[in-house]
């Protein structure tokens, strides 16, 4: 096992959820408001409202280089500064916060843990974000399949309203804010989705919140300028917001002690801890909190985490973090799980940092077929390259899996994959890029398996022609 010691000694996001070091999932329960407050909850919000101006809160988050935990890794503080400047009165007109709890990426189940067991951590993060960005209304867009989590959240929000955290009287029962000596009122609502992966894309999410089909919008204008109902809107992931109480409560310096620096010169660092949900062929699949930069091998083999591969099998590969990020090959088990992973290991990026691990017996062609089916099913149909290409890729993968493929199908699949996506510039959103990277990395890293399954395009016939014939 690689030599790696965690920098974080006690969990940050999961301090109230027994999950790291490993604990039986049966011991988990939803933390109610009184217990949350008793164990230090809402102190960061009080500190922010009573002693810090919104600008100081934003500055602290910017200093911490907290990068978005939803997949793209965009610096949160920087995103907040894209909002239009507030007017002389310190207000910025109507603004919205849309919390992205539409966790539909296959293999990803980290936000569910937070919403299931410690919903107030996220609510405190929402309140902090609303204070820092002068936002009056927050919507939590939760995916339709999370029935239980939506109920837990609604109960937690009712508790928070009853305790005067949200509501017209202002944050924390109308506590006077430092900058204006007035209260800042925040409303918070749950909005349930209805089973569409594309609504996890930020502008698709906004369309869905407006009651339309979840078709991503062309950018610019970016949501921070013109978002929900045409107003400036911030969209943050659940886990990103759950980090805010720690950053404001303990300070950005404490946050920067965790995680790791980038090994590339000038690239933004990967500070902080991250929830990593490991699934697939390991002994103890589950959601663990670790420092960014943990090698995948440690995550799989350590007794604190997954405790080795199931049945002592060998490692064959792993999805880097949600299937749209692509696949880590058999020789990439040492990959460090941080935001550099994309540049180092030929995958799209860290994504949600939720690897699905495959053992030696896994059929990678079947994996590719499953992934292609997912994207075909979830393509929203707005852009032609993605709508058609995802279907073609699924047909090709099924054909290869059934043993009916030809050698030229491999090149055709790669050609289709490379030509779709926002990065070749043929689609509006990144869904096709996910499809592209997933299929491309599997086909490149397990080329031999695909080649073994296809028939040659040109079948040699035993016929001699030309001068050399005898």
């Amino acid at each position: 096992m690689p030599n790696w010691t965690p920098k974080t000694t006690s969990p940050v996001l999961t301090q109230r959820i027994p999950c790291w070091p490993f604990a039986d999932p049966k011991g988990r329960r939803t933390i109610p408001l009184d217990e949350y407050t008793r164990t230090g909850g809402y102190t960061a919000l009080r500190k922010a409202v009573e002693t810090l101006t919104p600008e100081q809160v934003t500055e602290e988050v910017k200093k911490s280089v907290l990068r978005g935990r939803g997949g793209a890794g965009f610096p949160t503080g920087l995103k907040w500064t894209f909002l239009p400047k507030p007017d002389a009165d310190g207000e910025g007109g109507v603004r919205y916060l849309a919390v992205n709890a539409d966790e539909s990426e296959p293999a990803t189940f980290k936000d569910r843990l937070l919403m299931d067991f410690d919903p107030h951590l996220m609510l405190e993060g929402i309140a902090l974000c609303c204070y820092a960005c002068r936002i009056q209304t927050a919507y939590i867009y939760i995916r339709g399949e999370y029935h239980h989590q939506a109920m837990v959240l609604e109960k937690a929000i009712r508790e928070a309203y009853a305790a005067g955290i949200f509501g017209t009287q202002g944050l924390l029962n109308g506590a006077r804010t430092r900058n204006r000596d007035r209260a800042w009122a925040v409303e918070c609502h749950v909005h349930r989705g209805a089973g569409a992966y594309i609504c996890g894309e930020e502008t698709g999410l906004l369309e869905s919140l407006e009651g339309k089909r979840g078709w991503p919008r062309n950018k610019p204008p970016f949501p921070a300028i013109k978002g929900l109902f045409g107003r400036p809107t911030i969209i943050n992931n659940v886990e990103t917001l759950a980090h805010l109480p720690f950053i404001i409560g303990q300070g950005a310096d404490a946050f920067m002690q965790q995680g790791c620096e980038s090994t590339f010169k000038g690239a933004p660092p990967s500070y902080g801890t991250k929830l990593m949900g490991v699934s697939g062929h390991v002994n103890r699949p589950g959601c663990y909190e670790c420092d960014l930069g943990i090698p995948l091998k440690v995550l799989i083999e350590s007794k604190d985490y997954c405790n080795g591969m199931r049945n002592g099998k060998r490692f064959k590969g792993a999805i880097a973090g949600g299937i749209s990020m692509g696949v880590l090959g058999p020789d990439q088990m040492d990959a460090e799980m941080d935001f550099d992973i994309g540049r180092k290991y030929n995958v799209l990026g860290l994504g949600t940092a939720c690897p699905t691990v495959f053992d030696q017996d896994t059929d990678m062609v079947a994996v590719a077929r499953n992934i292609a089916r997912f994207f075909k099913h979830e393509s929203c149909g707005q852009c032609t390259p993605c709508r058609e290409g995802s279907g073609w890729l699924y047909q090709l993968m099924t054909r290869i899996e059934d043993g009916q493929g030809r050698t030229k199908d491999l090149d055709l699949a790669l050609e289709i994959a490379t030509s779709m996506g926002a990065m070749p510039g043929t689609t509006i959103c990144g869904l096709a890029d996910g499809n592209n990277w997933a299929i491309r990395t599997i086909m490149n890293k397990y080329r031999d398996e695909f080649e073994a399954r296809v028939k040659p395009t040109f079948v040699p016939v035993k016929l001699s022609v030309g001068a050399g014939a005898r």
Partner: protein
Amino acid sequence: MPWITKPSGTMKVARRNEPYLTPEIRAGLERDILPRYEKKQGALLPTLHAVQHRWGWLPWQALEEIAAFLGLSPAEVWDTASFYEEYWLQPKGSTLIAVCRSIACECRDHTKVTEACKARLGIDVGDTTDDGKFTLVEVECLGSCDTAPVALFNHTLHENLTPEGVSKLIDGAAAGEHHH
């Protein structure tokens, strides 16, 4: 595949006198949901959820009533309702069994679970039993990959399923055990 539509010019609409958007649902929405959104259309998804929760699916007449309620055209309501997988535009069984088929569940043999459901119910994926009690579907990731394979029985998630376990669950549901 939400973009595949059917010709609607010759569509016959079944109608009845009582509204699907009952006064109770209407009052609940007006009290709790409508004030949350700047524009009335924002309340469309919650409204569809509420009506479907009451009736199990969304008949065309219900969509028209929702359109009138929110000040939209029926086409706008249809546009949204037909996009999302969770809205049923034809009747479904009283228990909806949704087996997850995404990558983590496939790694842990979700196909055996689906096969067990098919054998126990005697239907194919996508079909409803003749008595109208069960509908079986396969869906993409349910977000519980650590406990794969998983399936939703209406609103209840069942984890670490085995073929025997899922048959037992179906027996329980058939005997009237309630799944929300």
